[in-house]
């Protein structure tokens, strides 16, 4: 059912493009970009670019999750630590992640790590904030149960606080997954000559609107699949 609307839009688009109402220079037409997309899929370029982009995004998400959950758990458990770090966090968080592209380029060069580092910075904040709030919201009774049973603090965090906070943390990771893809593609468009972002830049410079559209829709499809795979199942 949900597919009816996008299919109708594509059909209308095709009609308008064929009638010459939509400029083919920019809008191409759906039949063409399906052909271009199929060709890029068949010769393997689209898949290798997809692998490049999504492994950079996955790396970023992994790093941000490890760092964000670990620091978030500490901040959620220890108020004084949170107070001590609040100013630092508030000062760093508003920095636009793409503003780190020049710096990341200096450190990592033109590499997958360059994109991953910038995306990890962007993903870190939502995971940190959501984890801090979720761990702080864990019922104190559970922590007391852990202390009474004789668990040392690290075990209380791993066995009680984090599992209890997990539903909240997962929401943060899901939000961050979307951010990871957005920022990775951005770095590829702006500087890094890799992945799907760079493929679109090159296609645009080569005046191939059909391939630009095909890549763009492809990112949407794969992004949707990632979100679906990470989402709650009924």
């Amino acid at each position, binding site marked *: 059912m949900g597919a009816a609307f996008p299919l109708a839009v594509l059909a209308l688009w095709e009609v308008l493009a064929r009638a010459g109402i939509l400029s083919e220079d920019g809008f191409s037409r759906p039949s063409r970009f399906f052909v271009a997309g199929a060709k890029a899929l068949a010769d393997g370029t689209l898949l290798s670019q997809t692998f490049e982009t999504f492994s950079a995004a996955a790396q970023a998400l992994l790093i941000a999750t490890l760092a964000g959950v670990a620091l978030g758990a500490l901040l959620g458990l220890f108020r004084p630590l949170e107070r001590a770090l609040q100013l630092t966090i508030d000062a760093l968080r508003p920095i636009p992640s793409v503003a780190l592209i020049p710096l990341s380029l200096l450190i990592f060069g033109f590499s997958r790590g360059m994109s991953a580092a910038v995306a990890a910075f962007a993903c870190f904040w939502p995971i940190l904030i959501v984890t801090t709030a979720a761990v702080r919201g864990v019922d104190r009774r559970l922590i*007391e149960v852990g202390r*009474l*049973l*004789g*668990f040392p603090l690290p075990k209380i965090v791993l066995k009680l606080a984090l599992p209890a906070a997990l539903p909240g943390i997962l929401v943060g990771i899901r939000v961050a997954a979307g951010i990871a893809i957005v920022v990775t593609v951005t770095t590829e468009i702006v500087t890094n000559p890799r992945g799907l972002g760079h493929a679109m830049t090159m296609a645009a410079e080569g005046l191939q609107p059909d391939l630009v559209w095909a890549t763009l829709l492809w990112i949407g499809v794969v992004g949707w699949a990632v979100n679906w795979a990470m989402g709650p199942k009924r």
Partner: protein
Amino acid sequence: MVLEARNLSVSFGAQPVLRDIDLTVAEHEFVCVVGPSGCGKTTLLRALAGLTPISSGSALFKGRPVTGPQTELAVVFQDYARALLPWRTVAGNVALALEARHIPSSEHAARIAPLLAKLGLSADGDKFPSQLSGGMQQRLQIARCLAQEPEVLLMDEPFGSLDAITRQQLQDEVARMAKDDKRTVLFITHDLEEAIYLGDRVVALAPRPGRIAEIVDIALPRPRAQLATREDPRFLEYRHRLFRHLEH
């Protein structure tokens, strides 16, 4: 003495909650603490468990000061739902206590089964707490405390939110368990009859600040029975004697 409060006082900020509590609990004794709400019963239990800091005086376990929670002292909370891990099964919740004691997981099943049997949970090992009734959840919390193999059970109004029939069943089971396993129990309740029915001694607290009003030895024979014991003339005498402490 297994458990002892010596001139124990607790204040929250400037507000005194408990003042100069002197109380000893002997080995294998079942001591009940009653008092009107807000008299500091729960605070007394938490101070003895090492969960609430003491302002002055001391709490002693086997003569050593209690400075924090220790595994010999298990606490059964009234709000069982908050004390259980909803993402673990019944067996998994009991296993938590075994994990804390570093018991190899190969031995868990053999240790968990008799505990579940003892609490009437044998058929529910694979269920999650949310699938159990309130009484069954409280049984599970007690099973987990027993898996801790504590010397002392500190029970904080454990049956306060259960229906009357479940409450009576659990009273009898806990009384039997305490005697059979020779465990020392400190039992907090606001229900005077429950305190007399279960206790070897009943400690009545007076409120604001919490202090001991009276301690009564309960000379009712064991095992006790819900009907016979409660109809015993001495039961009524104890009830009359202690009742005034619960009036405001």
